[in-house]
């Protein structure tokens, strides 16, 4: 049971300094027309905006200076992330590279690879996607079938990956492939690779989604060659590398603030003097958002302390995505609109955007069912 305690954590002064710096950056970027506040999110790809973030020193701030970082705490980084999301800034290009790929490279990559790639990520010029899921695997990573076969000087990759965000626009993938037998616990024989998408042997196919956009992609590897240098970590230890760091992915502010724009527009819609029903609904959301954010910051603090709060992160994500899923359902009744994508009225457009996307939030980054299994195990129920 101790595993599911969340100690309140105040953000340190340095984090609040960072907040001022980010707000300043965002205000200037908005004034200069570099982004339109409120419209974008962590899946909006804008290479130009990411380069500006890199130039402003807002990417990879926790990393060593030698790799383009500022050696700042995880809590300062947290503030950058949440400010970007709350502003609706288009951070999708560098989001994955900064959140997952960079840290993995820092810990596990060949020194030459680190020196080459990390400063580019920090500069906002190098973007990553994730190549974990496969057409037949979904949440069950142990069933990965894409195969890497050892050849002279490296590995040949054959197989298919799917649900990679913006694969057509990123430079690299973190790829999980089978290099050996799964073994009795089903978790062996997997290895992580860094895959350069500018090299031959990989074909990228966009997958149009229900909003009409093509954010997801599928990749087909046909004798694609990866040099040994681009193996990430030890051969055969991919599974634990991937699952061990899920707390970074699962507890972040993106699990709370995805529909923040709708929340803000709902506050605008009910006006300064809401009726009882409007005040209640807004009040309930705020009580939940404030509490979720405190829990998320608490997990960030544990990460900053070098802990591995996997179950807490799963719990925050489950609670967060459940809240995100509830929000549009309550919002549509609070201030009735017929939602319409690209409507001129911000609330109508936000409602459409969130209505179409919210059901996916309980699937991305581990389905609700996977998360609840992790929580249950930590509660001692398995």
């Amino acid at each position: 049971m101790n595993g599911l305690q969340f100690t309140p954590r105040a953000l340190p002064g340095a984090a609040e300094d960072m907040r001022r710096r980010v707000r300043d950056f965002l205000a200037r970027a908005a004034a200069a027309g570099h982004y339109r506040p409120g419209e974008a999110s962590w899946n909006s790809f804008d290479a130009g905006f990411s380069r500006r973030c890199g130039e402003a020193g807002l990417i990879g701030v926790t990393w060593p200076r030698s790799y383009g970082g500022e050696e700042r705490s995880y809590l300062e980084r947290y503030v950058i992330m949440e400010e970007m999301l709350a502003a609706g800034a288009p951070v999708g290009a560098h989001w994955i590279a900064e959140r997952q790929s960079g840290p993995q490279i820092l810990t596990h990559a060949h020194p030459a690879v680190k020196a080459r790639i990390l400063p580019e990520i920090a500069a906002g010029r190098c973007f990553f996607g994730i190549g974990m899921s496969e057409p037949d695997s979904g949440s069950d990573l142990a069933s990965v079938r894409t195969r890497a076969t050892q050849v002279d000087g490296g590995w040949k990759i054959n197989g298919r990956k799917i649900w990679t965000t913006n694969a057509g626009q990123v430079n690299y993938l973190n790829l999980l492939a089978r290099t050996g037998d799964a073994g009795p616990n089903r978790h062996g024989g997997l290895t992580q690779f860094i895959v350069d998408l500018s090299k031959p042997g990989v074909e990228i196919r966009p997958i149009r989604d229900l909003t009409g956009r093509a954010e997801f992609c599928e990749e087909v590897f046909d004798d694609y060659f990866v040099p040994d240098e681009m193996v990430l970590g030890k051969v055969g230890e991919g599974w634990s590398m991937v699952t061990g760091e899920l707390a970074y992915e699962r507890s972040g502010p993106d699990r709370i603030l995805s529909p923040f724009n709708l929340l803000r527009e709902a506050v605008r819609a009910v006006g300064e003097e809401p009726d009882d029903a409007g005040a209640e609904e807004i009040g309930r959301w705020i009580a939940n958002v404030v509490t979720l954010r405190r829990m998320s910051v608490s997990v960030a603090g544990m990460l900053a302390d070098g802990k591995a709060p996997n179950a807490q992160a799963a719990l925050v994500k489950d609670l967060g995505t459940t809240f995100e899923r509830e929000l549009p359902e309550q919002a549509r009744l609070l201030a009735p609109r017929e939602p319409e994508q690209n409507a001129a009225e911000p609330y109508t457009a936000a409602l459409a955007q969130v209505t179409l996307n919210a059901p996916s939030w309980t699937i991305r980054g581990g389905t609700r069912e996977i998360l609840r299994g992790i929580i249950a195990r930590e509660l001692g129920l398995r």
Partner: protein
Amino acid sequence: MNDMRDILLEQTDRLFGDTVDADAWTAADSGSLDRSLWARFEEAGLTRAALDEADGGSDLGLADILALTRLAGRHAVPGPLPETMLAGWLWRRVDGDALAGVLGFGPVRPADCFTLTPDGQGWRLSGEAARVPWGGVADRLVLSARTLEGEAMLAVAEPVETAITGGGNLANEPRDSLVFDDLPLAADRVRPWPESDRGPTLMQIGALMRAQQIAGALQRVLEMSIEYANDRVQFGRPIAKFQAVQHMLAVAAGHVAAASMAAEAAAARDVDDPHFALDVAIAKARAGEAVRPVTDAAHQVHGAMGFTHEHSLHFLTRRLWSWREEFGNERLWQREIGRVVATTGADRLWPLLTDLG
């Protein structure tokens, strides 16, 4: 249920199954009307379902039209087929002539209204209506309107000379805002509509139409999810074997059955029955309430696959998320029910419920 009706429904189900596929849905996503598909429906007599046999129609009553409407929902049929059938039925109900072509009706919001002023032998129509289904695509629209004296009328107008602001719902079905400014109408294009005494309102007819479409589409979404859960293997077995998936779909099945029962009961009620209004309100409220749990479960079961444009699930779910808002969302109709019940009073509540059946 009679034999003729069963045969008609079976044939129509087959026609929709044969003609409405992912290509048709994808084409419809542009917001335009698929004329070749529409021609198939015309050929099958569906567009003239409500008309007199003498006018080449099938002479169907409201209950039969609503049964077809449910099938249209089940197949997420592109184009305003239910609207056309029901607009034809509405105009025939006031002894109007047989309306041909693509039809719509409105207004669809309680606040919108049209005004008729006499002009010689005929009339002039003015007013605005927001988000009329297929309002800018239909050949003609059956509109409720009032004379300056407040008399309720139905009018048939062609939106050709109208200011049209195009829009769409989440499924990109056209929802157009219309402004008529002194549109001249011939005398026979306007007829009295005794809605204040006994007749249904256009909002009610529209709500009943959407309730039926929702019930049909929910059933289909449930079936797709069951099929997918049995096919999709994760962690070494079909996800249908996981208790969490089973229970999620069991709960969804409850909502599908409830939505279906509510919609069917209202569809079976005669429009002149004093309980028609309450049954329509119950149908739209209950069907609307079912949309969220069922579409949630369906998308959760389908995982990332359900969000791809390639998979058909979203053609149904995007319509469901839109239809529940149209012709009054569940909150609007719940208020209607609540006010009727409050007026009836606590001690007359149970007799009201048993009387309703």
